[in-house]
């Protein structure tokens, strides 16, 4: 590989506290050879060609902790190849895949298949998670140790929650012994039963069964109470309400854990559901504008650690149904960064805060050496035109499924180039 020089970029690398104008050098081995203000025309050999980015931004490749891929079992929704292309167009270079496939990722033999498919078909870094319990049934624990040895990065029942407190405490004990990371989707099934959207005036008007915010709260409170006595690596996948932000803020003073939020809950609210738009049937549900604002504030005061896309591809047939029958979830990996940038452009969040929640924070939680621009590390990064306007169009999405929650939305800021291991794999 030929050496590449980029100069005159705004470089943001929260891991190394870099936020400055400078350049980046990709070495012949695809690793980062230099980064920052010291990389400029004065110290690039005159015989070398360089690329002047003219004020565009360089961010570390994004790390998305919550991504659903259809392999195995739902290849018609998304396969590793289409996921990889979609991710690259959004500047995402590392993803944690959810185990809610068919069959479920719950045993060692299937991990080999997954890793092989991930390696052969995708160009991004795939970090598979496995389920906490066999077939995500919430009863029998999976083999955390053996699965970890095979390369499983975290354990989660994905869209499901461990309901049984005794089993949850045992899971935490095992996770403590084996140093495993638990990702919990917080939802009490009895309270959310048959629920489709936030419990409030919109659910009352639309006549749809509501999901009260306490359904999330009860599980968070339960798990954090367990965590007080069982110290393990614990992460709440996504929170959705102001109340959850408040609880987590208080509990973080005494207990160590982390939490995430979906870009959907940060950018949209229940009013966007309008006239039964099934593409906005999400889990956790979109809540009120006050909740959304509290989540944004939670990010800026570090109560919330990461932003995820919660990329859940669903084919249109599963969405062209009545609201009750429609599948839950939205595709979102391609728009994750651009939609996040909306919060910068409208003055809600600092750019560093957003980039940190999309790069170094998730990498730290996962304990992977990604989401940074360390010299000597794989050159995984994206180049972003922060002001480029564009409109989300279903037909332009690269994901196999087109169930975006923000069809026709005008966004500002677009990834123009994405590099993985020094190789340019996406160019606008």
């Amino acid at each position: 590989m030929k050496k590449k020089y980029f100069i005159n970029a705004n470089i943001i690398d929260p891991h190394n506290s870099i936020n400055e104008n400078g350049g980046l050098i990709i070495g012949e081995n695809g690793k980062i050879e230099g980064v920052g203000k010291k990389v400029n025309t004065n110290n690039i050999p005159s015989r070398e060609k360089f690329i002047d980015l003219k004020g565009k931004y360089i961010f570390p490749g994004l790390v998305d902790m919550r991504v659903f891929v259809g392999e195995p079992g739902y290849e018609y929704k998304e396969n590793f190849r289409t996921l990889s292309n979609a991710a690259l167009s959004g500047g995402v270079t590392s993803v944690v895949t959810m185990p809610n496939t068919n069959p479920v990722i719950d045993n060692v033999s299937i991990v080999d298949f997954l890793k092989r498919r991930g390696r052969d078909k995708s160009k991004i870094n795939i970090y598979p998670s496995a389920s906490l319990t066999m077939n995500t049934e919430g009863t029998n624990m999976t083999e955390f140790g053996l699965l970890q040895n095979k390369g499983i990065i975290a354990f989660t029942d994905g869209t499901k929650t461990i309901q049984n407190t005794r089993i949850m405490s045992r899971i935490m004990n095992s996770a403590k012994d084996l140093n495993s990371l638990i990702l919990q989707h917080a939802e009490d099934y009895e309270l959310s039963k048959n629920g489709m959207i936030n419990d409030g005036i919109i659910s009352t008007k639309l006549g749809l069964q509501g999901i009260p915010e306490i359904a999330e709260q009860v599980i968070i409170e339960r798990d954090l109470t367990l965590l007080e006595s069982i110290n393990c690596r614990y992460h709440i996948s996504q929170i959705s309400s102001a109340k959850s932000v408040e609880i987590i803020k208080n509990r973080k003073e005494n207990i160590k854990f982390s939490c995430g939020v979906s870009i959907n809950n940060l950018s949209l609210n229940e009013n966007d559901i309008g006239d039964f738009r099934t593409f906005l049937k999400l889990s956790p549900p979109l809540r009120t504008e006050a909740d959304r604002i509290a989540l944004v504030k939670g990010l800026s005061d570090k109560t919330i650690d990461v932003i995820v896309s919660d990329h859940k591809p669903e084919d249109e047939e599963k969405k062209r149904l009545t609201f009750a029958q429609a599948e839950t979830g939205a595709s979102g990996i391609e728009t994750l960064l651009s939609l996040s940038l909306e919060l910068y452009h409208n003055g809600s969040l600092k750019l560093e805060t957003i980039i940190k929640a999309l790069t170094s924070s998730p990498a730290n939680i996962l304990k992977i050496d990604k989401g940074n621009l360390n010299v000597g590390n794989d050159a995984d990064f994206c180049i972003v035109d922060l002001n480029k306007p564009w409109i989300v169009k279903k037909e332009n999405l690269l994901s196999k499924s087109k169930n975006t929650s923000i069809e026709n939305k005008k966004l500002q800021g677009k990834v123009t180039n994405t590099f993985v291991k020094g190789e340019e794999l996406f160019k606008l």
Partner: protein
Amino acid sequence: MATKTNNAIKISQKHLLGIQDLSINDVNIILDEASKFIELNRSKNKKLDTLKGKTQINLFFEPSTRTQSSFDLAGKRLGADVMSMNIVNSAIKKGETLIDTAMTLNAMHPDIIVIRHQDSGACNLLSQKVNCAVLNAGDGRREHPTQALLDALTIINRKKKIEGLKIAICGDIVHSRVARSNIYLLNMLGAEVNIIAPSNLMPKDIEKLGVNIFSDMKKGLKDCDIVMMLRLQNERMTSSFLSSNREYYEYYGLTPDKLNYAKDDALIMHPGPMNRGIEIDTNLADDINKSVIKEQVELGVAVRMACLKIFCI
């Protein structure tokens, strides 16, 4: 007000999906038209040819007695060709989606589809996929516009107005599309609406719709002109909403004793079917001086004829 000629009725909507979409002018047009059919329905020759040559499809995904037969009769009295789909024997049982069913029916060029469906918003989805007008005969727990319109017509017939009346809606509000449509309509027409239900049957934030809420029935009934009772929808209750029917009757069943809190000339209404001895005392339900339940059914046909005529032409 509505113009009197048949073919110049100006309604703002193409479909009748809910009261929420209607303007007060739309409501007056429908009620005016409906009141013209009341006499016809009481006369010997009930047949008109207003909808001659028009095709009406009744698509009922939920069991229904009065609404389906009411729409059926209404269409026939106006001279339309009425077809009622039997869902049990249809392709829906074979897994066909609502949209595909809609496309199939649409290809047969109906002029109007009347739909009842267990899912809220089903009629909205259907209306986006067909060329003809769609009338909502009840979708999930969202809306049942013709019921609210016939209730309004019944009240107007007896009380000569709605504005300024105090109206209590009592019972299983959370599962009730009738309650929601009535709240919108009665509010629009200037009534004061009291909602009475145990907390487990009260939808979240309903007071934001501009109603007063009560969990004490006697307080909620105080000085009411109309007492609208709702059916306890046991088929939609998946877990413990109530301890027992007898306790429900004790606290939320309409009895002569509780009715005393309402005005002396208060009228009792119920959209049916009734659970006698659960939400309403059986004698009260049949009390011809107080109960207008049968009149509701009678005027229901008139209201549906008006809706078919207005939305079909």
